[in-house]
């Protein structure tokens, strides 16, 4: 195309001046062709960038991890640099999460030791010291769990390139909870469409569903069911249920970092915060058996349910 343009211009400059008169039509024709060729060159040379833009939005939506395909030699180095940048970014996020994890886990064993010291103090009759240490250990543990979960979610939630099958996740949790709550003999049933995927990092979905399902196992009498109703993942139990007025409080309790009430888990607050990181929500209602139904709404297949 560039060659054709070049030829056209050459003709205009060198060949045309020989035909002095009556040749204007030919001159215009050639000039027109040159201009068309120019537009085509510009359009074609920008084509790779249009393709790139589509791929970048696919990267952002998490459909692909990097920009693939062959590009003109002028553009390829840019693509290579972009891919390196994407990989570096992913690595940096992974490193940051790993570091946060190491820090959290590094603190847990000393905390476990402190707790044993508190129990020893208690056994020696020093109740006040024991209670005070216990309280602070609990508080630190909750803080660590809460912020670790949040750090992981905001890192992965922001990158947006995650898909997680809900049924598989819930089944793994059901196996786990059946063992952890073996003494309670609660039956956990998962009834979720096999192909249902949410746009959430696996670890985060497990954290949200795990907390909801564990609550259900704690309070449920015999049956806990995970289902999918009206675009929300629901966890039902057949326990005593909670009063309407308490629902909001249960979700909010202990959220803002320095909650000190002993025994108030941050479980539900974590679920809510994680759901919000992904643009979702969690809500408590009554289940058909009078227990609690927890509704977890998360982005499904790119759209919010």
């Amino acid at each position, binding site marked *: 195309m560039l060659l054709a343009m070049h030829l056209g211009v050459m003709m205009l400059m060198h060949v045309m001046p020989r035909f002095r008169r009556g040749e204007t039509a030919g001159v215009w024709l050639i000039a027109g062709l040159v201009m068309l060729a120019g537009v085509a060159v510009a359009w074609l040379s920008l084509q790779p960038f249009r393709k790139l833009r589509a791929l970048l939005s696919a990267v952002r939506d998490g459909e692909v991890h990097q920009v693939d395909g062959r590009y003109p030699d002028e553009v390829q180095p840019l693509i290579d640099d972009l891919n390196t940048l994407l990989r570096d970014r992913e690595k940096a996020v992974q490193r940051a999460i790993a570091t946060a994890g190491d820090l959290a*886990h590094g603190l847990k064993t000393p905390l*476990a030791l*402190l707790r044993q010291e508190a129990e020893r103090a208690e056994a020696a009759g020093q109740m006040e010291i024991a209670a005070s240490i216990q309280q602070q250990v609990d508080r630190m543990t909750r803080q660590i769990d809460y912020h670790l979960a949040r750090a992981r979610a905001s890192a992965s939630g922001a990158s947006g390139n995650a898909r997680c099958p809900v049924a598989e996740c819930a089944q793994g*949790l059901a196996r*786990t909870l059946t063992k952890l709550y073996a*003494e309670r003999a609660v039956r956990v049933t998962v009834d979720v469409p096999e192909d249902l995927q949410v746009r959430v990092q696996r*670890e985060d979905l497990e954290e949200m569903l795990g907390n909801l399902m564990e609550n259900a196992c704690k309070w449920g009498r015999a049956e806990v069911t995970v289902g999918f109703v009206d675009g929300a993942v629901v966890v039902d139990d057949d326990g005593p249920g909670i009063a309407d007025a308490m629902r909001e409080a249960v979700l909010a309790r202990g959220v803002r970092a320095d909650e000190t009430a002993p025994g108030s888990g941050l479980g539900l607050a974590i679920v809510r915060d994680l759901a919000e990181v992904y643009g979702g929500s969690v809500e408590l209602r009554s289940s058909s058996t009078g227990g609690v139904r927890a509704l977890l709404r998360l982005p499904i297949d790119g759209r919010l349910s």
Partner: protein
Amino acid sequence: MALRILVAEDEARLAAQLAKALEDGGYAVDCAADGEQADFLVHTERYDLIVLDLGLPKVDGLTLLRNWRGSGIAVPVLILTARGSWHEKVQGIDGGADDYVAKPFRMEELLARVRALLRRASGFAQPELRCGEVVMDPATARVLVRGEPVRLTSHEFRVLLYLMHRQGKVVSRTELSEHIYAQDADRDSNTVEVFIGRLRRKLGVPVIETLRGLGYRLCCDR
């Protein structure tokens, strides 16, 4: 309680505290400070339960657990770890663990879970162990015969507990002594006979049978 427990935990003080609490509960306890040692002990000794830290040096706990389950070692495993996310719990249970406790933990809760796990592993549904007129409660280390408390030494208690967990089955002297003493203690099957003799006198009911050349059997249905 019962029986022999391996504590695989690399933090020495925590391991010592765990061992002490478990021993106070009547178990014989060995400790391993890294993955290799834990693996060696599991392959050379017989344990009734393993308390396994995931963050062990040399070989990590999850790898060990998967290897054991892969090679048919079915000893109940309780994971005790700093890693408490649900993702990690699912991995642990799917790796073959029977229970999962996150640090920091209450010693009381851990002991309760150990007892529950041993009870489940031996197929008992009741917290109390019962054999005819003999009732024992591992949680409180109490033994009742016809409702009357009987005082047992810790070795006698362990012998009875082991037999209780294997009611109706033949237990050899070697097996019994292996489960009564921690790994480095002196093993002498004659002392087992001594303990059995004392147990029979103290219980006063004929529940322990001797099978010549084979060992002992707890017989409850007469």
